């Protein structure tokens, strides 16, 4: 029983991380209808920036927020410079561009920052709360941060004009244009927000997995599974999906299929969900007129 609780708690902890990146994926999906395969690598690059800042002596939270600003700017810049020129091309061309971006960011990071593993500090105290041995403070803190992001996103999309404009653009760019929304800037904004959220999740992962250019590869797959499970158009859903995937991965990996095939869990989940309920657990089913 104790061991099972252990697995569940570490599942919740890694689920928090997947939820973070899943949120970033949902951001871009919501504003553009695309799945950004380079999301994990962008997050990894931002985390390196944070590491450099801390290395120069910036206090943790200073570096944290500076990195978020950097990631936002970089996300906007990538949308304007790299993705924008392709907006009229078919989806498949864009998938190739995302793959190109993934490769470029990944190899630039290992070129600039080297290939040695780096330790990344955690902002939370190392003594576990109430001396429990199930969950560390960093894990608890990460879960908290993810929940805060979800709440902010929910408020942003539900109650602000800007959020409404972004949802409108995702729904129908041409009509949005006609009512005076600056569509292209909304898309850039979506990218910026996604990159910023990704950066946060990167900074939360790094203390656990160590900072390395391949840090986010596996995380991206699990996050995709989480986002699809919860529903790609719903931040709450994506976060919950991330947690469920985290728990499933740990519990099934420990008791049912063994750690060797742990990775496959996420993928089987993707396929099964796509087949049975393509909109995800909490997603909206979209009916298209033909």
């Amino acid at each position, binding site marked *: 029983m104790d061991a099972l609780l252990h697995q569940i708690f570490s599942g919740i902890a890694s689920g928090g991380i997947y939820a973070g990146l899943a949120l970033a994926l949902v951001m871009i999906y919501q504003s553009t*209808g695309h799945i950004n395969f380079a999301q994990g690598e962008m997050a990894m690059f931002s985390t390196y920036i944070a590491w450099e800042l801390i290395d120069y002596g910036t206090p943790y939270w200073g570096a944290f927020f500076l990195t978020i600003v950097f990631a936002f700017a970089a996300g906007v810049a990538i949308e304007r410079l790299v993705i924008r020129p*392709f907006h009229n091309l078919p*989806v498949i061309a864009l998938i190739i561009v995302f793959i190109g971006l993934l490769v470029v960011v990944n*190899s630039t990071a290992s070129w600039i920052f080297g290939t040695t593993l780096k330790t990344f500090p955690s902002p939370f105290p190392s003594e576990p709360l109430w001396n429990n041995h199930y969950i560390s403070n960093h894990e608890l803190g990460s879960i908290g941060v993810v929940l805060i992001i979800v709440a902010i996103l929910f408020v942003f999309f539900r109650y602000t004009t800007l959020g409404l404009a972004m949802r409108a653009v995702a729904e*129908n760019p041409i009509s949005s244009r006609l009512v005076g929304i600056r569509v292209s800037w909304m898309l850039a904004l979506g990218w910026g927000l996604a990159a910023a959220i990704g950066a946060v999740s990167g900074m939360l992962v790094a203390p656990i997995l160590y900072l390395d250019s391949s840090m986010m590869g596996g995380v991206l797959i699990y996050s995709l599974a989480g986002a699809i499970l919860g529903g790609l158009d719903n931040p709450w859903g994506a976060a919950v999906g991330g947690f469920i995937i985290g728990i499933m991965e740990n519990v099934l990996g420990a008791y049912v299929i063994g750690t060797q095939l742990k*990775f496959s869990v996420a*993928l089987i989940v*993707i396929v099964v969900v796509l087949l049975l309920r393509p909109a995800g657990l909490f997603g909206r089913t979209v009916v298209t007129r*033909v």
Partner: protein
Amino acid sequence: MAEQVKTSTTSTVAGQPLSSVPLVKSATAQIQAVPLPRRLVGARAWGIGAIVVIGALLPFALQNFYIFQLTLAMVYAIALIGLNMLVGYNGQVSLGHGALYAIGAYIAAILMNSYDWPYWLSVLPAGVVCLVFGYFFGLPALRLSGHYLALASLALAVTTPQVLKHKALEQWTGGFSGIVLSKPEVPFGLPINQDQWIYFFVYAIMLVLFLGAYNLLRGRIGRAMIAIRDQPIAAEAMGINSAIIKTSTFGVSAFYTGVAGALSAIVVQFVSPDSYDFFLSITLLVGIAVGGFATISGAIYGALFILLVPNFAGELSKSAPWAIYGVLLILVMYFLPTGFAGFVRMIGQRLSAMFTR
């Protein structure tokens, strides 16, 4: 081997929301499809004939290392034509063809290693196993489209290496260390070396498969595939059985990729789970994008790109070769959205317009 698809492809994107932009536009949708003038059709046939002859003479002019590289390029070309059938012609995006390539390679390797089959006999079973597997993977794929199909097939690509490493199969697959094969002997006492022989072996299979693909894609079934890609509902209304065409396309596409995988096992004489990782699937997709969607000749350009450009990028910059590769990839997509095949065709049309004016 440039082909013209005369069925009208959708090009009216302007009036529709972004989400309904067609997944894949064939090269002909963007470049005005001008039928070749009659006297140039003959010229094209001569040109293709000349390329086939040059291809057969090349191994006598090159060193063994370059022969090996070209052989590998031909293997990739077979896989690319298979993938292009599915993605380019039928509009189903697959990120999972690396898995089919791996299955083909392993079937061939296991037949040769555990059951002592001769190498030339192991290619066809590998293709057939993949055909069946691809057909059944095509069934759930019927319900998915676009990004979702890409993700589901990605699942296949990432899971396969893990399954290959699994203990239960280790007896046949050799687990982590894979299977080492012996190099095929030159038969009939021919006066050529082993590398040259493997080249001819692959070359012959490639020619047969290209001819098959050409006939399939230029005919009734090929037009049905394109119709399903561009106007799925209109295609059904015209009496095309979309489900059968889509699953069969998946099957045939898997057959080509499986044969390519089996040939790769024979050419490299080694299979291991890590040589068929997720990046192989991406590389194949990159190959058809660079070569040109919905083109047959594009397979050749794409194969040369994915084989040569990483080396070239490595020479250009020792420190970040993959960054150069990625930048090149984005630039190619930007400047040549119809791939090299579309580019070559455009040049050809400019030239023929110049001469026939």
